[in-house]
């Protein structure tokens, strides 16, 4: 999990995927996740995964790094998959494919959309305290993470980490976390004071949700909607994907996305 890197990608990216509307990206992500829920066909899952990765590439994000981040929470999925080995290898492969596809779609959403916009969108469906808490959390995370980083450096420089003294090192580290908790507590009180002076009355202002769709929203949105419909159709009729239909479609999508990139440059 690397929130700082993801945040950097979201704020520094200038691709047309970055500039697509939040609504379209949230909808497309919902379509991918619904597709993952509906289908148990390895070919459709691989198609969805490839679709997400092609869009990651179109957003000019580092594909390998995004894949690595999506694999990180995979331990539990692997454990879950290994528990299904008795029925053959198809089920474990499906489980891992589902994990990778859904995680990659979420990472694509958050890496191409600024957090204020994403949280603002989801905050509409949550209680006020939770929505405001999410904003405060995201903001505070980077402050605390920097503090932890400085603390660890200071600990190393002052000999707080020594070889073969695992318990002593762990104790120092835990005390550091304790100190960080105290710091976070004090900071939250100062933050409240500052916010009150600036007129905070229990309601944080969030960005307006831009309605409607633009042309640049369409490729990813259309493709994910198509894959979802295809997965539902296959499931309802008990069919399996055959031939080169999906690979051909994905190649056309890839060429189209690369073409748009070259044209825009």
């Amino acid at each position, binding site marked *: 999990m690397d929130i700082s890197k993801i945040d950097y990608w979201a704020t520094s990216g200038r691709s047309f995927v970055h500039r697509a509307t939040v609504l379209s990206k949230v909808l497309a992500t919902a379509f991918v996740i619904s597709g993952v829920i509906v289908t148990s066909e390895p070919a459709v899952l691989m198609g969805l995964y490839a679709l997400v990765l092609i869009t990651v590439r179109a957003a000019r994000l580092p594909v390998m790094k995004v894949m690595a981040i999506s694999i*990180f929470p995979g331990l539990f*999925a692997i454990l879950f998959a*290994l528990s299904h080995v008795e029925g053959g290898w198809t089920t474990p492969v499906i489980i891992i494919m589902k994990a990778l596809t859904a995680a990659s779609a979420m*990472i694509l959403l958050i890496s191409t959309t600024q957090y204020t916009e994403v949280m603002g969108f989801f905050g509409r469906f949550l209680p006020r305290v939770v929505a405001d808490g*999410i904003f*405060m959390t*995201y903001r505070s995370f980077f402050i605390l993470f920097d503090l932890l980083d400085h603390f660890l450096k200071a600990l190393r420089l002052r000999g707080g980490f020594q070889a073969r003294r695992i318990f002593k090192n762990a104790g120092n580290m835990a005390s550091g976390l304790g100190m960080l*908790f105290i710091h976070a*507590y004090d900071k939250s009180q100062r933050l409240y004071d500052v916010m009150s002076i600036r007129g905070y009355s229990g309601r944080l202002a969030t960005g307006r949700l831009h309605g409607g769709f633009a042309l640049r929203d369409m490729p990813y949105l259309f493709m994910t909607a198509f894959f979802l419909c295809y997965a539902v159709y296959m499931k309802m009729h008990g069919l399996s994907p055959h031939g080169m239909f999906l690979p051909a479609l994905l190649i056309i999508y890839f060429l189209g996305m690369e073409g748009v990139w070259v044209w825009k440059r």
Partner: protein
Amino acid sequence: MSHLHIPDGLLPVWLWLSGLVVALALVMFSLFMVRRMELRKKVPLIGMMSAMMLVGMNLEIIPIAYHVNLSVITAIILGPWLMVVTALIVNLLMAMVGHGGITVVGLNTIVIGAEGMLGYLLFSILKRLLKPGPAAAVSTVLALALSTCLMLFIVFVANVNLNVEAAHGLREILDAPTVNTFFDVFSVNKDFDFRLFAYAALGLGTLGWSIEAFVTAAAIKFITRVKPDMIA
């Protein structure tokens, strides 16, 4: 290991939907319980404590891919009701970065919320009998054990199938409940080796609980020395 890192699409729809409904109800109930509190004053604190949990979750212990949750210490500082709100916030943000599915947010909120609430409850009792450090350690181990069992229960329930044809005989079950008839209606997914899953989760979990208990105890000990009013 205590919360579900299960991605989207693996759990049955009825299970994660019920999880979302129950979690939302739990959050609303928690907010009702703290209605006398001036919540706007607490929002920055909730944010900071959620961020602390996220920082803890970022510190991965590489060989076993374990990370501390810091849920018990957060509950001790915030109280059990605000802890539930914090659990929802943390799980939502984690799901955003692909760490656990977005559909599993509800179930994870229940698991981590229960972990924090039990930890808080145990700490409130044990701190009268033990020093704060050991009290926090024992509370953490027990709370994590409970939440891991809860997580295992969810995974088990996810693999129980309802045999619809046999379920038509529900009248007979009610009239003459026997073990055999019950298992005709419900069956466990034969492809799923629950024992293997449970051993692996509990094996890794035990190591993780010890690490988390140690970290929580040392941090609580430090806090009680430097700023004891934070815990009171």
